[in-house]
């Protein structure tokens, strides 16, 4: 076993963006470890140390040379390894290739079992680590990926990285590992914090790296996160039970915007607290990366946390500067909000006539008109009383008004939220205000739904209008492109309809498309509506799969054309449960059904001449009649389990029928009568599930 030393590869750069940096940090450790393994260099656990200006891998106890390898492998028996002329056979050649030696170098020897075999012997001498580490480092730098981002060139070089590389510190123990990439050559120096310890700092040996960094006012990502959390905890405890809001994404970014963090507190003027807090917080979090502070009662305070990367002694300047920026921003926000409040919402609604919804689908005002009609229909179907229906229509009427308000033009993310405020200020009822505020939900998978029925009706109307419009102009989403987020809209609609029993999606699609037609959009109603139905079916299938239902169960339900989410799921569950309780019956029933459906000829109809029937046939007919009646009652009661149990009851009669009766009788009349009976049998299933789908996977 060779000596070991610590290995350091530090890639020094100009300030890297946070998300790609975090992604690359995760890659770096794995890359270095797998490269060391592949090179046969024994090593300790790789640690990654990163800051905006560096990405480093520190590996303890890396062998200074690879182990010497001596390998002997036994191959085929000598008798089959050589032909009559003594040349190696295909078997011998294959074995040699596998072992990485020439066939001529195979050795014949008698093994312990007394038989003669060929052996491959391979010796790889120990190789020094240094050249291996050089090559490995260059490969690692070049192979870091920047997903969802781009890398760049700089200067006159043609290699790329996420930002220009300015230095490389590469050491094995105290020796520099020669590495060059783009226009940079490695050395034994790192660089310190830009103002607290500018310039080069010698790293005497790899093991000293983190100590050297800390002396140069640079902390690792973990230490920075810890320092910021500690600072925030202090701020909270000094304010007795206060809470600092640190959304993950912003927190990660703040950690990667500094090398030596100092947690400071700034203040904005009292008057801004009258501005909707969503705007204040967005302005602080997204634009400035400040963390808002809430008091013990949960109320937003005038104070905010700002994390500085400056010399702690200039904190006062830093706070004053940031307060000035926040004042200017909040001044803007307050101005916009106050101006918006001076205008009646009806005026905003009218101005929606100047805003394009989609080039071929007209203005936002037209969309709002369609939404009003649709939201009322959803509310009615969902069982709202007249007041509820009127509220849904009213909320839909006002839902998009804030898009032309100054506050939303400036703070786009607050669409809906601002409308809620303006509606409340205008004295609209609470459920209307809530519906306006929440009608963009669910905005992503797993997002909350609008809290009330009114909001859900408006949200369904908004999204369904978009889905139908996009299909009407024949721009449905494809695998790679869904610019109007139609897929997400459909998933949202399904999630909401699952909470609104009574809604008939097929009818709503018809209404939505009808509104476009009334407004003069030209399209083929029948084919578009079929395409939308099919699209929803596709989403339902995907959702049902995610919820663990088996694909053939889903297909059985899907292929009878059910698209109402509640019913779809209830049927699929009932069928799945019935199958799992009595697999044998369902397998047999599925096969019989598939056979019957295959033979059945719909053109013959279902009128059976009872006089021509034999016993087994009569029994099947009776079972079909009884089954249909039970299915009808069960479906009327919404009891899918009962419907499926009724279908299961047909298993014995159909089996007996196929056992006893030859369907394809030579006599046409007999044959056709039997086919009519099979039609009748198939018909019983048609409203419930395509049981035949269950037989296909077998």
């Amino acid at each position, binding site marked *: 076993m060779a000596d070991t030393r610590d290995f350091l590869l530090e890639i020094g750069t*100009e*300030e890297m*963006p*946070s998300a790609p940096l975090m992604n690359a940090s995760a890659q770096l450790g794995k890359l270095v470890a797998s490269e060391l393994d592949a090179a046969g260099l024994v090593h300790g656990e790789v640690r990654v140390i990163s800051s*905006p200006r560096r990405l480093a891998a520190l590996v303890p106890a890396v062998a200074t040379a690879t182990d010497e390898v001596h390998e002997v492998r036994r191959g085929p028996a000598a008798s089959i390894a050589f032909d009559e002329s003594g040349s190696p056979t295909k078997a011998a050649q294959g074995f040699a290739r596998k072992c990485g030696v020439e066939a001529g170098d195979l050795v014949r020897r008698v093994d312990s079992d007394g038989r003669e075999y060929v052996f491959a012997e391979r010796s790889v001498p120990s190789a020094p680590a240094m050249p291996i580490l050089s090559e490995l480092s260059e490969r690692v730098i070049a192979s870091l990926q920047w997903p969802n981002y*781009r890398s*760049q*060139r*700089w*200067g*006159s070089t*043609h290699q790329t990285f*996420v*930002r*220009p590389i*300015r230095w490389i510190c590469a050491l094995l123990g105290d020796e520099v590992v020669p590495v060059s990439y783009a*226009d940079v050559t490695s050395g034994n120096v790192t660089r310190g914090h*830009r*103002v607290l310890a500018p310039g080069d700092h010698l790293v005497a040996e790899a093991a000293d790296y983190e100590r050297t960094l800390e002396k140069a006012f640079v902390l690792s990502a973990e230490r920075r996160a810890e320092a910021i959390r500690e600072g925030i905890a202090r701020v909270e405890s000094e304010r007795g039970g206060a809470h600092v809001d640190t959304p993950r994404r912003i927190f990660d970014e703040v950690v990667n*915007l*500094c090398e030596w963090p100092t947690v400071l507190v700034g203040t904005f003027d009292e008057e801004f607290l009258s501005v909707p807090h969503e705007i204040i917080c967005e302005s602080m979090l997204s634009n*400035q990366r400040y963390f808002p502070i809430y008091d013990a009662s949960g109320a937003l305070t005038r104070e905010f946390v*700002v994390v*500085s*990367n*400056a*010399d702690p002694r*200039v904190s006062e*300047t*830093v706070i*004053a*500067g*940031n307060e*000035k*920026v*926040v004042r*200017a921003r909040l001044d803007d926000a307050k101005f916009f909000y106050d101006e918006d409040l001076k205008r009646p919402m009806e005026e905003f609604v009218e101005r929606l006539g100047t805003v*394009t919804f989609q*080039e071929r689908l007209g203005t936002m005002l037209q969309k709002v008109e369609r939404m009003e009609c649709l939201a009322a229909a959803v509310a009615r179907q969902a069982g709202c009383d007249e007041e509820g229906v009127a509220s849904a229509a009213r909320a839909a009427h006002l839902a998009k008004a804030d898009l032309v308000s100054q506050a939303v033009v400036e703070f786009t993310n607050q669409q809906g939220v601002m409308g809620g405020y303006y509606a409340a200020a205008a004295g609209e009822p609470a459920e209307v205000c809530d519906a306006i505020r929440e009608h963009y939900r669910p905005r992503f998978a797993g997002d909350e739904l609008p809290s009330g029925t009114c909001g859900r009706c408006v949200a369904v109307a908004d999204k369904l209008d978009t889905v139908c419009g996009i299909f009407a102009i024949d721009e449905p989403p494809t695998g790679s492109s869904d610019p109007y987020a139609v897929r997400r809209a459909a998933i949202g609609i399904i999630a909401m309809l699952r909470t609104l029993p009574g809604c008939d999606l097929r009818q709503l699609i018809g209404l939505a498309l009808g509104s476009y037609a009334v407004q003069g959009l030209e399209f083929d109603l029948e084919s578009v509506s079929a395409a939308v139905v099919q699209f929803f079916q596709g989403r339902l299938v995907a959702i049902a799969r995610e919820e663990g239902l088996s694909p053939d169960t889903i297909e059985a339900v899907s292929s009878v054309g059910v698209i109402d989410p509640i019913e779809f799921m209830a049927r699929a569950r009932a069928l799945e449960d019935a199958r799992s309780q009595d697999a044998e019956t369902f397998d047999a029933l599925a096969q019989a059904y598939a056979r019957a459906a295959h033979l059945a000829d719909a053109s013959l109809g279902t009128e059976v001449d009872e006089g021509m029937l034999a016993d087994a046939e009569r029994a099947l007919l009776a079972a079909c009649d009884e089954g249909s009646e039970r299915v009808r009652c069960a479906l009327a009661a919404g009891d899918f389990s009962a419907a499926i149990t009724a279908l299961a009851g047909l298993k014995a009669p159909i089996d007996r029928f196929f056992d006893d009766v030859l369907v394809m009788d030579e006599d046409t009349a007999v044959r056709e009568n039997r086919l009519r009976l099979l039609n009748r049998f198939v018909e019983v299933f048609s409203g419930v599930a395509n049981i035949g789908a269950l037989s296909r996977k077998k």
Partner: protein
Amino acid sequence: MSKDVLTFQDMILALERYWASCGCTVMQPYDSEVGAGTFHTATTLRSLGPAAWRTCYPQPCRRPADGRYGENPNRMQHYYQFQVILKPCPADSQDLYLGSLAAIGLDPAEHDVRFVEDDWESPTLGAWGLGWEVWMDGMEVTQYTYFQQVGGIEVDPVPVEITYGLERIAMYIQGVDSVFDLVWSYLPDGTPMTYGDVFLENEREFSAYNFEVADVEMMRQKFDDYERECHSCLEHRLPLPAYDCVMKCSHAFNLLDARGAISATERANYILRVRTIAKLCCESYLAEVAAKNDGDAKKGEVA
């Protein structure tokens, strides 16, 4: 304002002197309406081709839709950028930049200076780059971009573009809340000449013109005429006059936009037309000028 705080003009002079000392050719603004310092030929066209180039210049920028009749303390339809181009970008460009802040009285050691990811893309120029907005105590003071493509062409070597928002920085240095209160210079008797004295009337008149008066039909015509003229120049292999026409088209488009005279569809189409001629100019400049210069330089070396 204390006497040792820089006036607006001192700030420009200090930046010019500083970057001149770094080997920049001090240029003057492009003498036609441009929407940003980037549009100056000294940036767009000189970024192309292999020749080394360093320049700095202040550039008045016109953004007709941003006018607020001089009533908003921060927004104007005419404002200044200070532009620096270093090609190829040197390894110490960030240090040079930090030095320039010190040169205008903003010692980086006394503030919190941050390089915050902000990538740049100009659909009109067919250009993009990676870089940052530079924050000083939370305020954005500079755009810092490594160009990668200009006019749809990969730049090689890579220039770095440093663009200072002059008014904003001056407001910070001078501690005023309205741009119109900035001290531009002093009369001999010590009376301050403010930014408002110099430009307030300009903001009022041009806001009225941009939003209410500009002749829409004339602007449409002007766009079409200059677009045609651009093609004519290109046929005569004159990329610089052709590029001048691009700026005219771009400004006519901005005015039409401010007048609210273009629909969303038209808008996209106008932008596409500007991009098309801008790219043609870049290609022509590279073929006629930038690549040829390189040939000459090499010949010179051989001789």
